């Protein structure tokens, strides 16, 4: 190393500062990280999961964790089988699913419609703005007990909570889209002799569609949260109701089972909405 540096220094005779000359320099390279192959990655992920489950099971059996509060994987696994073979699994899943989807569709479409309608009058948009902000800042879940009182303990109240959660996001996002509508595009339409309704239908709505589509993924999660919280408060069926009920009766394994099923439902709906989003984006923007 020193041989190389002296040979270079022989040609250019520059007096070296003493402090720098004293410190030997280690050659540095770009940090390199080779990505694992997919099978290896999956194997490692599965291994992590297995060791976590094993650690939990061992901790529970050696009383390091109190199984009364924490339960244990073996108990959860057998409860899972019971839940699906003898329990209310399908009724709970379909109930929660229906509430979520209805609330999602209702809230998203109402919010989008309200946001789009603000295009028609800038005066009304300004007049309504404080109310929208106000409604946004209320934690909607705090209204859940009230909504249950009004709509009863059945489907309607859960749908209403899910819709309330998703509607505000849709309104605000869609209105952002409305404000971003290209003014030159509007001028083009008017120069061609278009009516306001034509501009709205053929230009404003398509321009805002990407904004509306972008809400879907957020809203499906919000709608599920709304439905589950509604079930916590009062319901006859549903995964949220099962979690709450099992928690109160100290059936911790059942709590875990319902949480696992709920998470699976959530992931399934998220994946479905993401796929829908991809299709819609391709169908709308063509770029």
């Amino acid at each position: 190393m020193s041989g190389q540096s002296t040979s270079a220094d022989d040609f250019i005779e520059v007096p070296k500062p003493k402090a720098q000359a004293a410190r030997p320099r280690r050659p540095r390279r770009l940090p390199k990280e080779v990505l694992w192959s997919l099978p290896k990655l999956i194997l490692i992920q599965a291994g992590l999961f297995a060791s976590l489950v094993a650690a939990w099971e061992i901790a529970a059996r050696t009383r390091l964790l109190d199984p009364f509060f924490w339960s244990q994987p073996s108990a959860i696994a057998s409860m899972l089988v019971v839940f699906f073979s003898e329990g209310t699994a399908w009724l709970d899943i379909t109930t929660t699913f229906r509430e979520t989807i209805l609330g999602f569709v209702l809230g998203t479409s109402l919010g989008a419609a309200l946001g789009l309608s603000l295009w028609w009058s800038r005066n009304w948009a300004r007049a309504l703005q404080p109310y929208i902000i106000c409604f946004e800042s209320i934690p909607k879940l705090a209204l859940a007990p009230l909504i249950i009182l009004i709509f009863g303990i059945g489907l309607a109240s859960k749908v209403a909570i899910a819709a309330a959660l998703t509607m505000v996001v849709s309104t605000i996002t869609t209105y952002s889209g409305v404000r971003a509508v290209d003014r030159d595009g509007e001028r083009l339409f008017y120069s061609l002799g278009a009516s306001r309704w034509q501009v709205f239908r053929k230009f404003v709505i398509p321009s805002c569609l990407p904004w509306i589509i972008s809400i879907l993924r957020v809203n499906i999660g919000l709608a599920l949260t709304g439905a589950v919280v509604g079930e916590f408060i009062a319901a006859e069926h549903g995964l949220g109701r099962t979690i709450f009920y099992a928690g109160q009766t100290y059936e911790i394994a059942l709590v875990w089972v319902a949480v696992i099923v709920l998470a699976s439902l959530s992931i399934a709906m998220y994946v479905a909405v993401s796929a829908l989003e991809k299709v819609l984006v391709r169908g709308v923007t063509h770029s």
Partner: protein
Amino acid sequence: MKLRLDDVSVTFQLPGGSHQALSPVSLAVPEGRFISLIGPSGCGKSTLFNVIAGLQPPTTGQVRLDGEDITGAIGRVGYMLQKDLLLPWRTVLDNVVLGMEIQGWPAKESRARARPYLHRYGLGGFEDRFPATLSGGMRQRAALLRTLLIDSDVILLDEPFGALDAQTRARMQEWLLQLWADFGKTVVFVTHDIDEAIFLSDTIHVMATRPGRIIETIDVPLSRPRPASISTTSGFTALKQHCIELLHQDQPLEDAA
């Protein structure tokens, strides 16, 4: 006269007082002519176009089309803005028929009418493509066809080739002249490119700023068809020099103000 402006002026009311964007302008465009407006930015070219297209009510004056008062009426003249403004969610064909669609043509008829034009003007085979996949020149062609296919005899073109590179631009100019000859429409063209104005027009109106106004009207005596090499002839360069002088006259005033 096909299109006539009588003492059209535009004054904007601003918080700090009023701003005269356009002092009274009168203009007469005979049928089938190609006229250009040139001038520095801020001379009111686009304001004038907005008035003609009915998008901006004039403070004073009238716009007449075939003698009929069309002040403030929209959809009576074709207007192409600087940006192509093709709708990304529509195919090229559906973009081109937009004007006809808005004016109430049935979809089938408007498409049947547009198809041969797309073929004839270099967009054949691209009917079902989306604008994002087109080159700048092709997008501009589609936008121009959209403007030409509505039933109006007058079209306004606001720097339509401003964003194109020099070579594409030269091709588009020749293409525009071919279109103009085929369609026989009356064209009002805005540009700040002197060469472009001389190459394309029968008449050039030179504009100046503060307030926006027409300072001189120049007839272009060059015969048609004009080859691309015409820009090196003495007649062309003399006109160009005259225009440059007129436009530069305006600059010192602007700097002093």
